[in-house]
């Protein structure tokens, strides 16, 4: 199958479309998203809020809200020597549940609301372990405390008994990481894990994630809109715009030499990647159109300085500009470069 064609892929999304039903409308949130993620890599998915980054993660985990569904496309996940089509597994069935938490761990953004306020944190971490491994409660506890210590939670024995509200944001995020990694999953998806934290804590958490990835050889998908983080941790970057991946490639290629007008605009809005590490992704001029609006051709056309008539005629396909570097734009020349803009803009 498709996974075996390239090198060792752990996850492979093929033309995934996700649609949401909101009242009478159907919102097309993901459009033909294809991502191939090699085992052991660290992929960053970037884009403005609402571009479908989180939905992509939810689609992989089969945790889309009740009104959303993968309408077409496939999500392949390689588990040992097996390749599973995640989107065809029963949502809350045994197989999918074994993967969730066991094979794919997930870290959420808002740590306060993502932890159950009524349960002790230790128990919340242990719950995952108990679910996937035949361990006793005492054993689970020992393992959780051990992991807490490893993740830098001070006084882990006592903290095991604490409630989420008694933790600081950074500590809570460590607990979230513990939940996601306690079962040693092959793949960890982190959905904007640091947005709610202040700069120093952000850095600590990112270091932690990077260390985890390196030491355990895990695959990481980091969803973020913080471009500074991307350059620090990622080896691959996928840029998304309005439900589509518009540029994909190794981190050096994409960040140093962005090809898609949207990526370019994004990078332009970050003055200097190295100067200030806490530079937020700035809004690109103009407004993101509603996903409910049906557009023909390039979704970015409305805001694109390079726009041409052809852009609005048909769906734009990915083109390879360099090995491993794909861009969804028809305005690229033969060298994969955008035309030089004439006139002020």
């Amino acid at each position, binding site marked *: 199958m498709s996974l075996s064609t390239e090198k060792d892929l752990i996850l492979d999304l093929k033309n995934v479309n996700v649609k949401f039903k909101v009242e009478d409308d159907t919102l097309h949130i993901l459009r033909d998203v294809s991502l191939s993620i090699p085992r052991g890599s660290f992929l960053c998915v970037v884009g403005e809020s609402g571009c479908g980054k989180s939905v992509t993660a939810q689609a992989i985990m089969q945790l889309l809200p009740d009104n959303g569904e993968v309408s077409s496309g496939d999500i392949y996940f390689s588990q040992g020597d097996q390749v599973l089509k995640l989107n065809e597994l029963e949502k809350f069935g045994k197989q999918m*549940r074994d993967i969730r*938490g066991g094979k794919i761990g997930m870290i959420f953004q808002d740590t306060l609301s993502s932890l159950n306020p009524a349960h002790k944190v230790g128990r919340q971490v242990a719950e995952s372990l108990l679910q996937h491994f035949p361990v006793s409660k005492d054993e689970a506890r020992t393992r959780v405390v051990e992991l807490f210590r490893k993740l830098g939670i001070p006084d882990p024995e006592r903290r095991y008994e604490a409630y989420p509200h008694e933790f600081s944001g950074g500590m809570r995020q460590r607990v979230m990481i513990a939940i996601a990694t306690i079962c040693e999953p092959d793949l960890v998806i982190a959905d904007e894990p640091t947005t709610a934290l202040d700069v120093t804590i952000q850095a600590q958490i990112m270091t932690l994630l990077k260390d985890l990835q390196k030491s355990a050889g895990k695959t990481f998908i980091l969803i973020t809109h913080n471009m500074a983080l991307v350059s620090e941790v990622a080896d691959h970057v996928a840029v998304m715009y309005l439900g589509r991946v518009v540029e994909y490639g190794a981190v050096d290629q994409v960040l140093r030499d962005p090809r898609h007008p949207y990526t370019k605009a994004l990078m332009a809005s970050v003055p200097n990647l190295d100067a200030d590490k806490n530079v937020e992704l700035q809004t690109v001029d103009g407004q993101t159109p509603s996903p409910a609006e049906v557009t023909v051709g390039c979704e970015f056309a409305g805001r694109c300085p390079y726009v041409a008539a052809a852009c609005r005629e048909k769906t734009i396909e990915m083109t390879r500009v360099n090995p491993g570097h794909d861009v969804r734009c028809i305005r690229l020349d033969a060298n994969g470069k955008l035309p030089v803009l004439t006139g002020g803009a």
Partner: protein
Amino acid sequence: MAFTISALIFFASRLSPIDPILAMIPPDMASDSANLEQLREELGLNDHIILQYLTWLKNIATGDFGYSLQSGQQISEILALRMPATLELVLTALILSTILALTLGLFAGAKKGGIADKLSRVLGVVGIAIPDFFIGLALLNVFAYRVSWLPSGNRVAPGQITFWDRFPNYILPVATLTIAMLAVLIRYTRNSVLDTLNRDFVKTARSKGVPEWRVLYSHVFRNSLGPVMVLLAFRLPLLVGGSILVETVFQWPGIGTTIIAAVTASDYPVIMVVSMLIAMVILFASFLVDIVKSILDPRVRLGGSN
């Protein structure tokens, strides 16, 4: 607060133009008007009103509630007799309706659009619109009179008879009150469950691969319990008289029928004591709400370290 209420109750009852002695023994039943004067003196009704109030407060505090004008029984005796009747009725209904509402609400919330959801939505909308005594009358007509399966209420007090002999008398009143309480409760639980289901930690729980029933039971249930429990605690005043209509329909000798009898007979001592009792229970309920909240939600737990 309790003090203000007691003063309000006392002076409000004294605003009424009805003479308590004549309410007790109208002139044409009295053997002699001098005897009435004597009784008035004995009951302290000739004292200054402030003194009367203080005496009343003192008596209430020491558990001496005085006499009913209507029956001449001691009010404490009436309460001792009728309180259990209401408590049995309301507590059973409260527990039953809570269990039912939580179960149904949980299933409804878990599977939106499913049978439980549809059922609870219909119950929530229709149940609120139907006056509770109508439910009682309908049950009475069908089960007590048409098919004669069940007795028409009329509580049998404990004592000589076994529980199972008394049991049939409970079914209809308890069922009525349960159905009546269910409507509001179900609406509340369903909303609460839906709210909780949308919370992020449910997603976290699911991301751990925990089975859905466990997600519901261990994560959703506990966290949606909070608002429901608060509502329940606010319904506690029912325990001392909120079931008035249902008690009237089934001629249930509880606090509710006591109030009605007292109100229609202007039996002030009884009215005052019972309203005092209700006010106390409400105060107690709001205290209970805080406790329940702290049990269910560690964030407000007392003495929690920060």
